[in-house]
């Protein structure tokens, strides 16, 4: 009788735990095992990025090697759970896609997705990165800039656009 009670209680706990995991998977839609493990670790506050890879990514970002920088940032934050790393990934898409005559829409779209991820991961949706090298220090500014770059309006025809500066 007692054994039966234990089996039933344990079965109930396992089923509820499994159901919660499935609900989490449906909500977060992870795309790799590292996103699953990283996401679960982040839920209990145990997620940490690979600091060495992040520093390497930052160095490459500052030297203008954006593609290589993104590869390093992806290695640092394989689960896409760190707001600051996602901010730098978005920024690298912005800087690489920015053009004096026109912007690369595909890169700006990817940048916008990364900026949205950074905002979603930040506490209260506010992210500020203190980096003197950056023209935009908050994720909101970056998102607005990327959205403006993707928008089609009359200002696109303004010839003075060629004098604007990359941030």
């Amino acid at each position, binding site marked *: 009788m007692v054994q*039966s009670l234990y089996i039933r209680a344990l079965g109930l706990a396992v089923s509820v735990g499994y159901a919660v995991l499935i609900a989490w998977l449906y909500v977060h839609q992870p795309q790799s095992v590292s996103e699953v493990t990283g996401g679960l670790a982040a839920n209990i506050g145990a997620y940490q990025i690979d600091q060495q890879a992040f520093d390497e990514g930052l160095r490459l970002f500052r030297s203008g090697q954006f593609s290589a920088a993104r590869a390093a940032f992806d290695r640092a934050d394989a689960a896409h759970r760190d707001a600051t790393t996602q901010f730098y990934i978005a920024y690298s898409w912005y800087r690489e896609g920015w053009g004096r005559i026109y912007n690369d829409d595909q890169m700006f779209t990817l940048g916008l997705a990364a900026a949205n991820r950074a905002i979603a991961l930040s506490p209260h949706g506010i992210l500020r990165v203190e980096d003197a090298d950056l023209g935009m220090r908050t994720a909101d500014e970056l998102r607005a800039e990327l959205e403006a770059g993707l928008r089609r309006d009359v200002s696109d025809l303004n010839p003075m656009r060629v004098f604007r500066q990359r941030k």
Partner: protein
Amino acid sequence: MNDAREAFYLPLLFLTVVLLGGMRIFDRIVLLPPSLFSLVLGLLLLGVLVRCGALGPELLMNSGRPAIANLNGFVVLLTMFLAGAQAFSLATPDTGLPNLLFSVFFLVLLLNTLAASPDRVRVLRSLMVIFGSAFILKFIVLAALSDPEGGRLRRVLLALLEGVTLGTLTQPLAHPAAGYVAFFTLIMFLTGLALLPKRVTSSQLSVLSSDQLTTTNSQLRTEN
């Protein structure tokens, strides 16, 4: 029913169906919750199983059982319902005319089974045929028609059928693994249904009682 089956095997089996049933593998993996229509079909399936004796809900939840056993029973019923909804969602094509046709096909078949009230074995066989044929049509026939790298025959067939269906026949191209995942998910679901506690009818109860009486009488005679 066995404690472990009710507390572990059935809920975990059905929850796995819930997880895999919503999985759509394209260039990325997407987990889709069941549509509202799938939920209706899942509820109808629950009704069919109870009506046909393939599921005895009174064996899973009743006032004579301890609270924890009733909770286990509730989890089995809930997960079975959700797994049913996801199984229908999985077997239904994602878009276009096939989506509509399959939905109507499932609804009519379930209503027909509900009206006919076959016994447990027949209803399980019927469900195997329903899901099996839907699987073949969606993952083999429609997938072959939607494959852009198909041969000349496919192009001729598609040209004919697309004209008739106003271009709503082809489906989004899924990853080759999608069919395998769907196959094992449906097998798991049908296995789960077969493992459900079956309802004991009044006629079976009377047979049981007379058998028990005969056994008791023969035991008494032996003792004397």
